[in-house]
């Protein structure tokens, strides 16, 4: 889990993309294992503004649906369309090709309030809960 990736208590990650002020958001390896095989990803509309903790996307396994929350407040500026044809990317490469949407935070300082890698590790070891059903 290399820096400067940041993590939420609801198991989303957020990492800078190749463009400044634009971050990719996905779910953690722990989360994809909990979800089991992802069969569908409901991607958000580009341009939508989402408050911190607001539902931004939904991922589905065979027997469950999970909400993906915005780690901080911001605007959806892109989505990973490859997930439409290959939702299994989320399981195979959660931190890479399995990113879900691209995001511009309202205040970049907010990102610093999220957990860093070691903090998330500790959070998991302390039994950091399960992904929430949507």
């Amino acid at each position, binding site marked *: 889990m290399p820096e400067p990736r940041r993590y939420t208590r609801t198991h989303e990650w957020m990492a800078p993309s190749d463009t400044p002020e634009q971050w990719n958001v996905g779910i953690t390896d722990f989360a994809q294992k909990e979800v089991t*095989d992802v*069969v*569908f990803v409901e991607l958000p509309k580009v341009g939508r503004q989402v408050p911190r903790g607001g539902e931004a996307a939904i991922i*589905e396994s*065979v*027997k469950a649906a999970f909400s993906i929350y915005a780690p901080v407040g911001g605007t959806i500026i892109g989505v990973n369309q490859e997930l439409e044809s290959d*939702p*299994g990317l989320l399981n195979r490469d959660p931190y890479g090709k399995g990113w879900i949407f691209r995001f511009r935070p309202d205040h970049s300082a907010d990102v610093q309030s999220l957990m860093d890698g070691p903090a998330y590790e500790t959070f998991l070891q302390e039994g950091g809960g399960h992904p929430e059903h949507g």
Partner: protein
Amino acid sequence: MSELSGKRESASRPEMEPSIWEISRPGARGVRPVSRPVDVTDLPPGICRQTPSGLPELSELETVRHFTRLSQLSRGVDTHFYPLGSCTMKYNPKVMDRVVSLPGFADLHPLTDEEGMQGFLGALWTFSELLKEVLGMDAVTLAPAAGAHGELTGILLARKYFESRGEAVRTEILVPDSAHGTNPASAAMGGFTVRTIASKASGHIDLEALSASLSERTALVMITAPSTLGLFEEELSEVVRKVKAAGALLYMDGANMNAFLGVLRPGDLGFDIVHINTHKTLATPHGGGGPGSGPVGVREFLSPFLPNPRIVRSGKKYSVVDGADSIGRIRSFHGSAGVLLRALAYMRMLGEEGLKRVSLYALLNANYLRKKLEGVLPGMGDGLCTHEFVLSARSLEKEGVRAIDLAKGLLDAGYYAPTIYFPLIVPEALMVEPTECESRAMLDRFADDLIRLVGLASSDPARLHRAPEKTPVSRPDEVKAAREPVLVDPMAAPGRR
């Protein structure tokens, strides 16, 4: 998942049936609907069908064989013990099949003038009266097509009631976390916000959590009684008191009414609205998923809002009327009469004593089977259960065995499976409902088989992972089905033939 992959030959599986389009033969005919076919020539071509319908083409015998074979690849109450919890898979008396095909019912047009359907209206009116009596309610609508439809009806009744009182601020519905998914889904469809009430570890409603959520915004509290854990709510009277004090209405999901029939009435318990699933409690067949029906009973103050149309009696005459304050129609016609008449006939046949015996024996069978399985898998509650009980297979997780593996093992042992993974608050849940119709011998055999399967979890878990081995197919690839959905037969693709 290594045990499951890899080719295994299994001699004991029955053969699957080809798709009906695979056995379709162009030009073959089944029945002929008219003796002298006519050509339609007077309709403008632009409004006529452009492409063939692509329906299958078979002889009548081929069709009969195809669907007979399909039936043989399925299990029902008529063929297997079907302990599917919360679904009350009891025997569906054969005489009811005759009842609904009697002249005057099956061939009755729903919009027949009242004068031409007095018997039909009278029968349905009589059924409402019987339901009012066993539910302890003042009025009943027979319109809802299923339990969930009844829930939506009840929720719309609550909305209309509060609107009529100028209390449109009541926008929330409270639902325990142990509830059927239909409860929150119905609430949302009715335009309400759902607030979930966490249950106590015992599975009972947490009165503190309830109090914390109740407010002047609460319209309705939906409670399944007995609960989905097969427990009678220990503090129900206190729940009722709190809900009424908050000015909200109390809804009873009557899916589990088989535990109360003739013995305890929702109205006497303090509920304002209740639905009953005739396909569960009143022995109408489940039909592979439906039709059901979900009549709703209400207290007098809610009766002006019941759906249209309604059947009323004045003197000896029955009429169909619309109420001005009604929530409106919830379906095209009166109700699922073909189901309701079966339920009426069942109640008439059983009478007062028979109805009571149904619930008493449902309680006996559930408690007997639960006791037989005591110590095998942990359950919920420590006193008596009601008509069903929930076990948790969590203790088998260390062997890598899950509830689903036991369910599949039960298929091989010659049963349908219990409900699994519900209620959501019990990990690895197996929900068992034997109903009053099963004999002690069957319950003994089932208990022995389940105990044997739990034993396999430590002695031969691979066997459970391979199960079922005697069914037409092994476990289907559900991930593939959901990732690349094939929802119509590729053999029937347009232009294929």
